[in-house]
């Protein structure tokens, strides 16, 4: 069969067959490869109807039966109707994927589809032989390329052209006005792969009216249409990244095999000759589908795997980023904390359980005249007697008072020790050791505070108090003694008036002493806990001394005075000097403001919250409205002022301060003319730590 000897009918048949083949392959290609993609699915629908048009047109060329040939040709043309509908709807779907279609565009599309559907009627009618669109067929298809054109066929062709132009216009709009690059590419792609092939195919109507049937134009156009269409499909699939070389290769191989066998079947002279090829074709189709499916399955799985691994990779990257971020944060946090530690005004040395220096801050370095490079990582015992390390060695070997052992975490701080170092400068330091336990790591923090200044202040304050005590008390003592001697009559007996004057002078001198004592106490306690010295002890001796100290005064005044301590009162933590001041103040007040014949009692007992001290008198009492202000500095009750014009108003202020510094409480119950009770409760340990 030489190419040049082909008749126009042969050329037409080959072109129809070829197009069917291309479209069938495209259909299978799209369905097997990209059925999940809605655009690919619609593209496949188009390929299906296009393929059917060409299949029936091809069948027309293969029969000599005029009636059957006409039926084939009518059915072939009738498939143009769903093809046009699919084309219009496809355009709209593609367009709407990127931007919403306006109402006019939609209305035109629906109108075109409706008109399209109307053309089904004349086609159906033509099958019954009415010849509205498809005219008569008088010669065999081998001679007559097409049936005669029916009187209305020209309208259908016109409508087809309008529909294709509409579709082209929609895609053109997408290409030129698409917002995204992807939309514009899609528009251009559709024009190239769909609109142009369909338009060129319209040239196929030429022979119906006697054009292009006798030359190779039709053949050329046909062969042009196929590759353009195939190119478009391939390009579309590439754009959609549906391309997989193994799958494509398999498909091309299978489809080529099918095509080859298909043409062998067609070209076989008899059915008997064709039977082996038909069997082979069936087998190839079945096996081919299985092969394609299995490859597709594998590809899908691999794609899934790639997707999962890509996700994993992303996740991993995110995780790594997060870890890096967190590590950075932790590092920042560490620097932050280290900066704080470094700049603390307290020297810190961290010792491991093996007494090795783990770290040291700059305050400790400066204070002890060492550098961290010299000492970290070294054992405390290794210092020897070197001068440069003597302060460090002294600080680390300082044994704080009242060390305690406990398994609790953090371990409680031991007491502090104070010592004087001479290197690199003479400083007084306070050393405190804080054992700690972090998981399995045990160690100790040695805190070193420079108390040189505090000590200097303390010394100068003590010096001041010493001088004040001496300078103020000495002359008053002299006065009192003068009055004593005069009163005693050793220097000659005094008459009644003289004696009265001397006695009141002595009383004033005594008040003066009390005032000076109060001032000294205020000065001493004004530094709050600065110089409180807590120690565990027995309160008995203090009460004893108060009893002895006031026995004389009380007797002189005619007031019954008792001071008792319950037997079950335990030893507890207090500052003896300050508690002594407290007891003296309370008892002194009680006796002072109780008239002759009254009673004053001091009792110490064990209470739920610790130790209870109460001082009760049957004195003048304190007015209710004044009770709140009792503990204010320099406050004096109106009644008290009436009774004694002098008095510093400091006694209860001092008392309250002592109670506060012991973390205790003081309350007063008083009724005018009946008496007053001051109740003090002191905790067993003013630091509030359980024993």
């Amino acid at each position, binding site marked *: 069969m030489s190419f040049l000897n082909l008749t126009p009918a042969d050329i037409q048949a080959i072109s129809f067959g070829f197009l069917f083949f291309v479209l069938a392959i495209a259909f299978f290609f799209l369905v097997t490869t990209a059925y999940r993609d809605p655009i690919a699915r619609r593209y496949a629908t188009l390929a299906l109807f296009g393929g059917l048009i060409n299949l029936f047109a091809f069948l027309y060329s293969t029969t000599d039966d005029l009636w059957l040939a006409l039926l084939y040709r009518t059915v072939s043309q009738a498939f143009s109707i769903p093809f046009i509908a699919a084309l219009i709807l496809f355009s709209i779907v593609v367009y709407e994927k990127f931007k919403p279609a306006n109402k006019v565009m939609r209305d035109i599309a629906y109108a075109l589809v409706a008109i399209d559907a109307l053309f089904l009627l004349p086609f159906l009618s033509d099958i019954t032989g009415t010849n509205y669109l498809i005219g008569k067929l008088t010669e065999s298809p081998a001679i007559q390329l097409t049936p005669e054109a029916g009187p209305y066929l020209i309208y259908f062709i016109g409508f087809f052209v309008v529909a294709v132009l509409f579709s082209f216009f929609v895609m053109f709009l997408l290409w030129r006005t698409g917002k995204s690059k992807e939309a514009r590419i899609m528009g251009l792609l559709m024009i190239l792969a769909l609109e142009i092939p369909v338009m060129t195919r319209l040239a196929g109507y030429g022979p119906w009216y006697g054009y292009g049937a006798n030359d190779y134009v039709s053949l050329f156009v046909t062969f042009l249409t196929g590759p353009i269409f195939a190119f478009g499909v391939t390009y579309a699939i590439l754009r959609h990244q549906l391309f997989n070389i193994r799958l494509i290769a398999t498909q091309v191989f299978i489809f080529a095999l099918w095509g080859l066998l298909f043409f062998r079947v067609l070209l076989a002279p008899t059915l008997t000759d064709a039977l082996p090829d038909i069997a082979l074709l069936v087998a190839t189709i079945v096996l081919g589908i299985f092969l394609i499916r299995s490859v597709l399955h594998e590809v899908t799985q691999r794609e899934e795997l790639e997707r999962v691994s890509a996700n994993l990779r992303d996740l991993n990257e995110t995780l790594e980023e997060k870890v890096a971020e967190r590590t950075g944060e932790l590092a920042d946090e560490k620097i932050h904390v280290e900066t704080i530690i470094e700049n603390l005004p307290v020297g810190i040395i961290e010792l491991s359980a093996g007494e090795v220096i783990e770290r040291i801050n700059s305050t400790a370095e400066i204070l002890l005249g060492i550098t961290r490079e010299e000492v970290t990582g070294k054992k405390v015992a290794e210092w020897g007697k070197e001068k440069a390390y003597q302060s460090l060695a002294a600080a680390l070997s300082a044994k704080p008072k009242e060390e305690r052992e406990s398994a609790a975490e953090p371990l409680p701080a031991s007491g502090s020790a104070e010592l004087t170092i001479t290197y690199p400068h003479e400083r007084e330091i306070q050393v405190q050791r804080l054992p700690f336990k972090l998981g399995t790591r045990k160690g100790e923090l040695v805190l070193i505070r420079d108390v040189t200044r505090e000590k200097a202040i303390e010394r100068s304050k003590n010096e001041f108090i010493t001088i004040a005590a001496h300078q103020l008390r000495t002359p008053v003592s002299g006065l009192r*003694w003068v009055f004593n001697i005069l009163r005693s009559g050793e220097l000659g007996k005094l008459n009644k008036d003289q004696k009265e004057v001397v006695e009141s002078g002595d009383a004033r001198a005594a008040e003066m002493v009390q005032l000076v004592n109060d001032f000294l106490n205020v000065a001493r306690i004004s530094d709050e806990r600065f110089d409180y010295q807590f120690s565990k002890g027995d309160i008995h001796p203090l009460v004893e001394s108060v009893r002895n100290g006031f026995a004389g005064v009380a007797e002189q005044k005619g007031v019954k005075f008792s001071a008792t301590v319950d037997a079950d009162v335990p030893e507890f933590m207090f500052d003896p000097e300050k508690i002594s001041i407290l007891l003296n103040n309370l008892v002194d007040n009680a006796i002072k403001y109780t008239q002759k014949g009254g009673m004053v009692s001091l009792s110490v007992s064990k209470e739920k919250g610790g130790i209870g001290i109460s001082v009760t008198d049957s004195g003048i009492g304190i007015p209710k409205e004044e009770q709140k202000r009792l503990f204010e500095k320099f406050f004096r009750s109106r009644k008290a002022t009436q009774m004694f014009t002098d008095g510093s108003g400091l006694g209860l202020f001092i008392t309250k301060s002592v109670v506060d510094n012991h973390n205790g409480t003081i309350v007063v119950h008083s009724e005018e003319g009946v008496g007053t009770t001051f109740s003090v409760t002191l905790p067993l340990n003013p630091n509030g730590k359980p024993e």
Partner: protein
Amino acid sequence: MASRNNILVVEDDKLLSDLLLRKLGGSSYYVMHARTGEEALEILKDNKPDVILLDILLPGVDGFEVLRQVKSSPILKQIPVIVLSNLGQESDLEKGKELGAKKFLIKATLTLDDVVRTIESELSAQSEEMPAETDSKALRDSA
């Protein structure tokens, strides 16, 4: 033989020392008086009083130093020392006690009679506690 007890009063304030001397002198004691720490130490070189009444704040050598020297002298260390001062801080009391003072009296809170009472109780305690010492002293006195 009832001998008059010797008392050394170390006191720089003229009014106070006058009053003390007057009071003690009238109470059958033989009283020596030193105005400074140096004077006190000088007196103690040749004398061994039965009681020392010691002020703390003195010009020059202070009372604590005198107390320390007394207590470190094998001859003098048995003499009871009563500190009679106007200092009254815990630290002062502790220091006095540490150095070996028998009593720490605060002038401003005492009458002269209290001082005399304390001296008497110290002396009687001394004679009870140390009969041997008293005996040897009596022996020496009679000799």
